[in-house]
């Protein structure tokens, strides 16, 4: 294992950086899109609610790999040339945003409906009440599950290995076939993934206990 780190340390660190970069980009966009659809799911307008519901159910029930491969195979063929990294990130954004939307929606619904009614009675419009009263309270409930979603996102970013995204998993495969030491290579890759996910996972558990 140590010899793998010595010989291929640079490649592994590059992969780690790409994984982190892709996860952070995907997290930011997935948060924006996901929160948007979560709000659409609770607006009074029935048409908007149906659109949000369809989006969420479709992307929750199709494997991430199918979404990612679609952007890797079909989009360059018919629309525009994009790299594996970009197509992987887009797939990750669409997939995660559906899960984040569900998380945020359950956060919004866990806020007492009296808060919304009280705000409306005070003369705020629906959007104002959402923006200033409901969402700030909802985000407090939502932070631990969102942290867990971020951990999932980091794990799911390994799907970039399928589309030549040069992430940690991809580098791991290259090194495994180069060094012929598959087992120790994958153990090294595992350690690097754990460095990203395990501390976050324990912190989220601590936060859950503290907020509960």
């Amino acid at each position: 294992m140590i010899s793998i780190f010595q010989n291929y340390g640079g490649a592994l660190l590059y992969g780690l950086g790409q994984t982190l970069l892709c996860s952070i980009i995907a997290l930011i966009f997935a948060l924006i899109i996901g929160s948007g659809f979560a709000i659409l799911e609770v607006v009074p307008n029935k048409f908007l609610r149906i659109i949000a519901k369809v989006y969420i159910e479709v992307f929750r029930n199709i494997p991430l790999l199918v979404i990612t491969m679609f952007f890797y195979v079909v989009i360059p063929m018919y629309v525009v040339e994009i790299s594996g990294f970009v197509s992987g990130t887009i797939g990750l954004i669409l997939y995660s945003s559906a899960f984040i939307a569900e998380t945020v929606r359950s956060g919004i619904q866990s806020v007492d409906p009296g808060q919304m009614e009280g705000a409306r009675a005070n003369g705020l419009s629906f959007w104002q009440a959402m923006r200033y009263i409901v969402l700030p309270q909802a985000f407090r409930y939502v932070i631990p599950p969102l942290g867990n979603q971020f951990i999932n996102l980091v794990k799911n970013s390994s799907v970039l290995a399928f589309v030549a995204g040069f992430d940690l998993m991809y580098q791991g495969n290259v090194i495994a076939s180069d060094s012929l030491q598959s087992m120790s290579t994958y153990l090294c890759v595992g350690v690097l993934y754990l460095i990203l996910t395990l501390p976050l996972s324990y912190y989220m558990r601590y936060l859950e206990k503290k907020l509960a």
Partner: protein
Amino acid sequence: MLTVLGAYSWINIRFLLEGAWVTVLVSVCSIILSYIFGIILGIIRYVQIKYLSAIVGFVIDIIRNLPLILIIFFTYFGLPNIGFKPDPIWASVIAMAVFESAMVAEIVRAGIVSIPVGQMEGARSTGMTYWQALRYIILPQAIKNMIPAIVSQFISLVKDTSLATIIVLPDLMNHAQIIYGQNTNYTIPMFLALAVMYFIVCYSLSLLSQYLDHRLGTAKKSGEVEEVVQSVER
């Protein structure tokens, strides 16, 4: 237009269905294995056996925080280094079972924790031993609470079988790739077919989970478990 419709010829559909059969086979095998091992591991983690529970808990945490693809690679390419060489189907069943057992174990632990302490105390005070109380009082209630959560976990298991294409498991995803690899005109129809087939299976399972939630009257109680599931779901 006709070339596109040719994608859905009987030969292609049958080829896809053969792949779907492998997907179902691998899913069902790993569901059964992970259900059994998940419950055992979850109970071991919950009851405080000296050292054993701590070790099991740590291993579960490690497996839960690794990508499934890594575990699949490790099983198929890593294990032959120490002399164990599974074929693609067994490698994916083993990898999925290991990963999902850890997930189910976490759900089981959360399910047991969500039962009020009074149940255990009451059972003990009527003269049951710790294990009797666990077996006859705590577990039946806990399993009822966590069934919707476990069904959602199995939805993600079905989706995750697609990841095993990377070790050339001849599943739905792999067969679709073979078809559009031979004729690029079939790419979009194949992705459509993939999306529809996975969606039908997963969405009906998700409806089943909602129905069970309703039927078992656990909608409120399983809230705590649901939080774990959201963290577990991929």
